[in-house]
């Protein structure tokens, strides 16, 4: 790991101020992605701005009918939250199956979405649950947040403060985990909102996306058979050492069926 200067700001303003005045600063949340990346010297920030002491980034609450999860909430906190379990059990299950217990004890929702790994679990939930990403500057609709392979709409220095999820009538998430890391080989999040179904897929392509063909099929008939009838095109899906595009296309279909059945 290259040298850097470590900061532990007490509030949001100070964190953003340090980020803007540093040469090439990075926020540090759970460190579960950033620190391994720095160990490999694939990242070498001049400054690390530890978000761990900022109270305003914590907490889970219901706000205007939406479920608000502070950016620094760990996967373990989300998985153990009675409020999340009551309103959005699919999200409890998703958070509780990220990585392993020690990763869940440190890793955060804000870090996960800012990192935008194509195989991360949360991005599928954000898209299917019509979430809003709240930052220190603005509110970004999930639909506009994930913009590509490990890329987001965040500007340099912009800090995610919370994610606000819509609460649908029914929702479920199913993933085929990579057996070593538990990242999604393919993960499908299905949600049944008052105005129609939303289906989002992670792990399969360059970044998480919605699958309108599934949604149309589910709006006609909210059954596993309806999604089974949709042909998934392998064009644009990833082929890597873990799985071929054809296998991923097959998994999308299977996970979508299971998710609808689990709703």
């Amino acid at each position, binding site marked *: *790991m290259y040298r*850097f200067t470590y900061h*532990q700001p007490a509030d949001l303003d100070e964190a953003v101020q340090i980020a803007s005045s540093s040469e090439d600063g990075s926020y540090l949340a759970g*460190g579960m992605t950033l*620190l391994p990346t720095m160990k*490999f010297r694939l990242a070498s920030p001049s400054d*690390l701005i530890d978000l761990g002491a900022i109270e305003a980034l914590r907490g889970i609450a219901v706000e205007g009918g939406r479920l608000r999860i502070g950016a620094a909430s760990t996967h373990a906190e989300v998985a153990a939250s009675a409020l999340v379990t009551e309103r959005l059990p699919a999200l409890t299950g998703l958070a509780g199956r990220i990585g*392993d217990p*020690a990763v869940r004890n440190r890793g955060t929702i804000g870090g996960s979405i800012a990192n935008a790994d194509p195989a991360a679990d949360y991005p599928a939930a954000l898209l299917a649950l019509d979430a809003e990403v709240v930052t220190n500057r603005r509110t970004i609709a999930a639909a506009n947040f994930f913009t590509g392979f490990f890329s987001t709409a965040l500007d340099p220095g912009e800090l995610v403060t919370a994610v606000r999820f819509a609460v649908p009538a029914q929702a479920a998430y199913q993933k085929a985990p990579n057996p070593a890391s538990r990242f999604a080989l393919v993960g499908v999040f299905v949600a049944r909102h008052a105005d129609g179904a939303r289906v989002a897929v992670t792990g399969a392509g360059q970044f998480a996306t919605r699958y309108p063909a599934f949604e149309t099929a589910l709006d006609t008939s909210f059954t596993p058979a309806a999604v089974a009838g949709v042909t998934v095109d392998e064009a644009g899906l990833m082929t890597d050492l873990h799985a071929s595009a054809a296998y991923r296309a097959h998994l999308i279909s299977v996970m979508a069926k299971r998710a609808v059945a689990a709703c």
Partner: protein
Amino acid sequence: MATDPSASIALRVNGKDVEGRAEARTLLVDFLRDTLRLTGTHIGCDTSQCGACVVHLDGVAVKSCTVLAVQAAGREVRTIEGLADADGSLHPMQEAFRQHHGLQCGFCTPGMVMTAIELAQSAEPLTPEHVREGLEGNICRCTGYHNIVQAVLAGAAAMRQ
């Protein structure tokens, strides 16, 4: 705040106040092993996947290879060295690993035991399934896990008595 090359950090480790110098980039595991000479905590990978380095930070199981030493300043760390009683009698989880042959080479064992203790403290009743899921982040190259699972179930039962 902490700047390189090194600053003094103070924390509590296994119930004792300790102090040592660390760079901002020093990992907690290296601080424990090299500065405090607590070499029971192991390093088995550089991808945060093997769990050999698991310690408790304020009571929570963390991979000490993926936490900075400065992040532990002012906090409480418990390592494998902090489990046995002063008279040398083993913690119930350590004793269960011994009884059930939950180790062969022993490299993964400190992390396994620290993870297992957190698992045993969870409110749910433990099944072999839970234990296998709970040890998802701890890799063992020797045992095939069967005896580790038996050990954790027995250790958890002993801890709950």
